């Protein structure tokens, strides 16, 4: 179709009515002219008119031919659509089944995409996000003895040098997140403050909704500009949403700070997984922080993000930055006078730039997990589509004679394929619309399972353009998937074959083969999905039920941090000791213990240790400081020796893994260990069972427990007589009385605390289970469909056999049984491969866990047999006389 003719066609279509009028007028003019000419030859008017009509033939036929000559492509699409709608209306059960499966299939895909896109994939709503890069630099820190991960890799002097000298980066910004104590209107609360370099807001190119942002000038002199910007969520949820807060003063770690602005609703900073309540200039950390400042060289605490200058390649920037970086590293390494074993590794550190267009995401596994989930819901949709493909095939087969007739009267093969595809398109558009609506309704509700109220706050609550495009893409893919094969197979190659052949035999057999293949695919997909679900379910069960090393029942926990409110550590320690005593005297409290780093708070200092066991053995271990009676309160068993009994006890306790790794079969009690670099050897006075202190997913790792003396934060564990809300509120009152104005977090039972930690994982599991049920149901529909078709196809034969007294049930089940066996085997094989990719998520079992895999097969087989049985059983009740008469 040339441009010109396409244009004419479109004009015709758009100006349809006027074009028709013009054609009428033109023909009328011709007829009148002709009539007049005939009148001139002496004919009577009636005779002339008759003659003209005769010459013209049918006027409508002429008009039709004129329209045809103008091309009918667009019009025929319109007629295809109308024809398609008519057919779909006629086969109502089919249409409803197809629409329902597509709605569910596209709906869950869109919902999951909405959630994952929001959590992970959406680009940051900032200027030129695609030129943002995160800096990482793995390797040992200055003077350090261990490697660092990349989350915190730079000291302030390094940041400053890079920002000053880089010519390939437009800006580089640095940030650090700290938990602070915020006092406002007589309340004291923990809040997350993100300390950012002064160019932060400029770099990201965002504007405040109220007030202003701080500038690079306010980040120059340490402590000079006590200003803060509130995040939109914190402003609404923690500061009451009053616009007059701008200009007011709040106390952060006892330092008066002026609120100068509020950032926009969609602004989440440059970190995807950390939400800040407040942002302050980095220079203020000199005043608010305690242990290091902007001049500290040997503490790498900053994350860096930079924007590439336009036209500069990533490689150029990397080369230039590393050139600067090498000089910095050299100078820093030279500043260490004593021999330092990690020096070479330190000098070999490199800056790596990672794209940060959607913000910095530390956990690369999240992407894989997200894609895996999308793949699984994709499977559900695939099963739904396969069902519809089967149904369409059957439908087209039923009307294959009609199609053959249409070819016989001149319809092109392409034309028929197009018309059948239009129908699939209508179905998937319908399913897409309903699916989008489903996502619209369900995604905010589902997101609640994953996120806290604060994080949820930023969620727009509904799918947007990106999600819409995703849905459209999926719907189009669905169209091709469900429509292409059936229409290609249905469109007859030549007229004769289809008109002559008996469709119930030859075509039916090939049709049955094809549909059988589809059902095998469905069963295989269902097995895969069910296998993953079983694995996930067993993993969750293991996580929740394996021995955590402590008993969570009847324990209440909370944490306070007085040092944020200006207490020196020694004074804070006295306060915590008082608090502990007061709480232990409270009614219904059995015993109290505390530690410096809370259970499952993802915190644990790790360092290298040396043990004296004949020779010197080194290795890394996590360190926790625990009060006397800690293991008694938490119910952790003491395997050897004893735990700390008095605040002044010396020595250390190690866990079983430590003892085994450092001492093997020899006894650890009485041996000595020290942290590498320290001079003091400490005696091991006890060995305790392994506990999961750091994270619920952790594998047993070496722990060293020191006696609790001082710490910034103290985490309390209180064994109570019985669980009741009254006790919780009583304890809070006691705490607020003893430690007024000190921030408190997490007053909850230990069980609640762990459940909250596992929230996302539990939510993921429930969703998986729902997908799995859906997949199994859809698969059952497919199996049911093919068995029914098989019965209908063989009805004559079955009737005869019944009449002769044969038992037909087994023969009918045999066909489906073969499909089930083949599908299950294929699914099992694929599942085994799949488990390799999800092995890091599986906990406490083999990735190819035989129990989960066999449970999956069993689930699918039972479902499929149940779906087979109904139509097969109905077939046995056929009345032979009636069936034969019908044929």
């Amino acid at each position, binding site marked *: 179709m040339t441009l010109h003719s396409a244009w004419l066609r479109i004009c015709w279509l758009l100006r349809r009515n006027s074009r028709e009028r013009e054609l009428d007028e033109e023909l009328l003019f011709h007829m*009148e002219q002709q009539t007049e000419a005939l009148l001139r030859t002496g004919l009577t008017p009636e005779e002339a008119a008759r003659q003209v009509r005769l010459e013209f033939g049918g006027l409508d036929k002429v008009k039709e031919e004129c329209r045809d000559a103008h091309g009918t492509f667009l019009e025929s699409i319109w007629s295809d659509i109308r024809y398609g709608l008519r057919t779909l209306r006629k086969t109502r059960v089919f249409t409803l089944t197809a629409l329902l499966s597509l709605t569910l299939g596209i709906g869950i895909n869109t919902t999951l995409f909405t959630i994952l896109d929001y959590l992970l994939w959406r680009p940051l709503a900032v200027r030129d996000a695609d030129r943002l890069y995160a800096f990482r630099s793995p390797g040992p820190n200055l003077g350090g003895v261990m490697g660092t991960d990349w989350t915190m890799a730079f000291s302030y002097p390094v940041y400053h040098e890079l920002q000053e000298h880089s010519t390939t980066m437009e800006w580089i910004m640095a940030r650090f997140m700290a938990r602070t104590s915020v006092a406002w209107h007589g309340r004291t609360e923990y809040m997350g403050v993100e300390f950012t370099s002064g160019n932060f807001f400029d770099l990201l190119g965002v504007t405040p909704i109220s007030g202003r942002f701080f500038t690079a000038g306010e980040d120059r002199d340490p402590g000079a500009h006590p200003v803060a910007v509130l995040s939109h969520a914190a402003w609404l949820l923690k500061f009451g949403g009053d616009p007059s807060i701008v200009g007011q003063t709040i106390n952060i770690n006892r330092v008066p700070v002026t609120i100068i602005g509020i950032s926009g609703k969609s602004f989440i900073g440059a970190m995807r997984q950390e939400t800040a309540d407040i942002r302050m200039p980095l220079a203020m950390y000199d005043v608010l922080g305690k242990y290091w400042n902007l001049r500290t060289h040997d503490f790498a605490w900053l994350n860096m993000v930079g924007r590439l200058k336009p036209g500069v390649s990533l490689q150029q920037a990397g080369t230039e930055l590393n050139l600067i970086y090498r000089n910095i590293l050299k100078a820093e390494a030279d500043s260490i006078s004593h021999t330092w074993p990690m020096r070479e590794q330190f000098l070999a550190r490199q800056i790596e730039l990672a794209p940060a267009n959607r913000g910095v995401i530390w956990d690369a596994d999240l992407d894989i997990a997200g894609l895996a989930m999308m793949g699984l819901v994709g499977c559900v949709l695939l099963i739904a589509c396969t069902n519809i493909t089967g149904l369409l095939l059957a439908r087209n087969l039923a009307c294959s004679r009609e199609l053959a007739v249409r070819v016989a009267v001149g319809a092109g093969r392409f034309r028929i394929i197009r018309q059948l595809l239009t129908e699939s398109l209508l179905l998937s558009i319908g399913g897409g619309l309903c699916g989008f609506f489903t996502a619209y309704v369900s995604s905010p509700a589902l997101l609640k399972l994953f996120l806290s109220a604060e994080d949820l706050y930023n969620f727009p609550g509904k799918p947007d353009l990106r999600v819409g495009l995703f849905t459209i893409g999926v719907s189009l893919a669905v169209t091709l998937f469900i429509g292409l094969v059936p229409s290609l197979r249905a469109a007859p190659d030549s007229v004769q074959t289809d008109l002559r052949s008996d469709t119930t035999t030859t075509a039916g057999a090939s049709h049955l083969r094809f549909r059988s293949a589809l059902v095998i695919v469905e069963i295989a997909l269902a097995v895969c999905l069910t296998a993953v679900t079983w694995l996930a379910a067993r993993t969750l069960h293991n996580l929740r039920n394996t021995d955590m090393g402590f008993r969570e029942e009847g324990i209440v926990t909370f944490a306070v941090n007085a040092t944020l409110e200006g207490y020196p550590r020694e004074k804070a320690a006295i306060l915590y000791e008082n608090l502990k005593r007061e709480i232990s005297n409270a009614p219904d409290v059995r015993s109290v213990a505390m530690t410096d780093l809370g259970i499952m708070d993802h915190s644990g200092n790790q360092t290298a240790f040396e043990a004296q066991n004949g020779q010197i053995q080194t290795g890394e271990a996590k360190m926790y400081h625990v009060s006397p009676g800690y293991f008694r309160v938490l119910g952790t068993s003491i395997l050897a020796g004893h735990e700390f009994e008095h605040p002044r006890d010396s020595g250390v306790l190690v866990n079983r893994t430590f003892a085994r790794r450092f001492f093997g079969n020899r006894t650890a009690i009485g041996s000595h260990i020290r942290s590498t670099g320290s001079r003091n050897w400490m005696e091991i006075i006890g060995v305790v069972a392994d506990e999961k202190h750091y994270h619920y997913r952790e594998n047993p790792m070496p722990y060293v427990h020191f006696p609790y003396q001082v710490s910034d934060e103290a985490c309390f564990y209180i064994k109570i007589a019985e669980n009741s809300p009254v006790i919780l509120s009583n304890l809070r009152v006691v705490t607020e009385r003893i430690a007024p104005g000190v921030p408190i977090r997490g007053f909850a039972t230990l069980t609640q605390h762990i459940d909250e930690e596992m929230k996302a994982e539990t939510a993921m599991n429930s969703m998986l289970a729902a997908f799995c049920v859906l997949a199994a149901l859809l698969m059952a529909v497919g199996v049911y469909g093919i068995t029914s078709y098989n019965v209908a196809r063989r009805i004559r034969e079955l009737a005869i056999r019944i009449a002769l007294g044969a038992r037909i049930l087994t023969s009918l089940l045999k066909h489906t049984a073969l499909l089930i066996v083949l599908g299950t085997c294929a699914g099992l094989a694929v599942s085994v491969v799949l488990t390799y990719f999800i092995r890091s998520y599986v906990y406490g079992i083999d990735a190819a866990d035989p129990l989960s895999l066999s449970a999956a097969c069993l689930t699918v087989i039972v479902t499929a047999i149940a779906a087979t049985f109904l139509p097969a059983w109905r077939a046995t009740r056929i009345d032979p006389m009636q069936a034969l008469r019908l044929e």
Partner: protein
Amino acid sequence: MPDQQTDLLQGTLDVLILKTLALEPMHGWGISQRIQQMSSDVLKVQQGSLYPALYRLEQRNWIKPYWGISENNRRARYYELTRTGRKQLEVETSNWERLASAVSQVLQADKAI
């Protein structure tokens, strides 16, 4: 004299229309009259096939329609030749001549035998 009139060969109508329009723009009825006239009443255009042919030629961008006023002061749809139409006429003319001479050659050979 119906036996003296010849039905048009398929495809020849197009070239005749183009030829007619090469002389001057014309409306549909005029085209049919002109063809009949120029062929001394031998060729008679089927009214029913004229208009689809016109629409087809328009579709191919060989002729272009416009509304004009006829000799008896009526609004009529006129057609004129486009540039590509003029080129097409040359091509079709030479094609026709080759075909006609070939056919007559065959027919004359038949006569010689």
